[in-house]
């Protein structure tokens, strides 16, 4: 254990073991998202059209992303998300069967906006003057704060998942079952790719004679996979955040 050859072999074995532990952890973290989305997807879904709302501009509900914009004064404002919140003001949804669903006010729900609509709401600025005014604040350490708001109001088609007004209820502008199914396939693909890459690297590493050039190629690939799968895993984690909490970020520029 303490001589050079045994030391090198032992450390190589520990390194390979550690590589597998972390590849399994990355896959395991993705599996947690897969499992949670599965639970979310089991909720019964009702569809209908918003008839009235008791919020501003007769809105039934809204999703708000509070953002901070910062700039170094080059005509570009970069936004980061500070918080995401969902608000149900209360109102009436006419369900597809003709029945009316009366909803009371709540903040214990998730409002899923259509993400392209949210992107449009965040786009800007409307004018050079708006950008200039925002940039003055964005250059300060505190940054320029704004809320990106997407409302669900009269005439909007909505999906109500879970017990109305119960904890965990989803009020969505998109079909949550379809969204969840798509994301779960994405996660499954990632987990399989993660494990397949780890297995392929291991085969190369253990290719006889050990420590020869094929083995070397495998070790180099394992290092690359180990470093590469971490940001990919985080990107996946962000990609499967439910639409009420999905990162918006983005930027404004003069062009």
């Amino acid at each position: 254990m303490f001589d050079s050859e045994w030391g090198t072999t032992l450390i190589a074995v520990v390194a390979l073991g550690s590589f597998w532990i972390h590849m399994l952890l990355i896959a395991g973290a993705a599996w947690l998202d897969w499992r949670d989305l599965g639970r979310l997807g089991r909720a019964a879904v009702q569809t209908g059209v918003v008839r009235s709302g008791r919020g501003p501009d007769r809105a039934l509900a809204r999703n708000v992303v509070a953002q901070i914009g910062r700039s170094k004064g080059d005509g570009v404002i970069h936004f980061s998300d500070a918080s995401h919140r969902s608000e149900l003001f209360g109102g009436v949804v006419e369900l597809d069967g003709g029945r009316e669903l009366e909803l009371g006010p709540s903040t214990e729900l998730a409002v899923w906006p259509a993400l392209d609509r949210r992107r449009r709401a965040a786009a800007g600025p409307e004018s050079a003057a708006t950008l200039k005014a925002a940039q003055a604040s964005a250059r300060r350490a505190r940054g320029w704060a704004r809320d990106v708001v997407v409302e669900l109001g009269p005439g909007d088609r909505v999906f109500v998942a879970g017990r109305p007004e119960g904890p965990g209820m989803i009020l969505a502008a998109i079909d949550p079952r379809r969204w969840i199914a798509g994301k779960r396939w994405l996660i499954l693909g990632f987990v399989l790719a993660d494990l397949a890459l780890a297995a392929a690297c291991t085969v190369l590493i253990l290719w006889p004679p050990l420590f020869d050039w094929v083995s070397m190629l495998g070790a180099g690939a394992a290092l690359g996979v180990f470093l590469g799968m971490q940001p990919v895993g985080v990107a996946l984690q962000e990609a499967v955040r439910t639409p009420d909490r999905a990162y918006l970020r983005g930027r404004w520029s003069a062009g």
Partner: protein
Amino acid sequence: MAVSVSALEAGQSTWLVRRREEWRQVGIIAVYWALLAAMVFVPAARNVPMFAAACYFSFLNAVVIHNHMHQGVFHSKALNLIWRAVLSFGALYPASANIPAHNLVHHHFDDDGDLDWAAPDHVRFRWNLLNLLHFPNVAGPRTFAGVQRWAASSRHPSFVRQYRIETGFAFGLTGLLFVVDFWGALLFVVLPQLYGARCILRINLIQHDRADIGSEWNHSRNFVGRAFNWIMCNNGYHTIHHNRAGMHWSELDRAHRREVVPRMDPRLDEPSMVAYLLRTYLLRVRRPAPALLREPGAAADQLGSRAQRRAAADASALAESSLARAG
């Protein structure tokens, strides 16, 4: 800011370094480089004890990065920049990443609209040991992506250039070692480098998990063993470091006893990190539930508000960067 200036004044009488305590940090890095060099160039040194020592000193290298990015070690601005590159090689990441990631984001938690890239909530396995193991896989990429976003809007004039120099030096020298001896570089240089870099990320989890980041005094866990803090350059005293980020590390132990102990929940003072790790991650399976932490409070709180002290800490961090830039 006043602390930072007094630190500079206090160091005028020392040769090369701002304070004589900095020699401890220089010594740590010298030992670390000696261990790596021995394993690369002396085949007989490629053994488990040397490897384990290199891993431990790699972690200490990351501690030195942390301290150096709060207050530069040397009087010379040029030397401070070179030192950053040296430290970057030891951790295989650019030391300057600490300015946005640690000094400006982590020290603020999520108070000012940017979620902490190294928040404990990023991991959520039920088996708590897995959270400790997995944490760097999540916090690392979040940190580097966050640094890229920060750099895009930062008005800090020399950050990107310095960041690239450190990245080039760290990866260039490591790549050169790969060319010379692939297995030697991978097993006896890169593994220790990664170990240290990943352990310093885990410290965020260890020091803040189940603490109350919204609290003035209960946001961090402290490890107060004397020997531990000697080798860790007082990095066990985390509450006072957060509250007075501009204070030199050599003053943290006294300040902890004076300012933190009377005000914090005593359960956040841990005598031993090893005992804490064993108790929290090995001898129990589940993650501990958040505790209801008390702030006993001191008779007359004469400290500035959190916002005031934070502003002073930011000024100190940016002054440190400016010192480096001017060189």
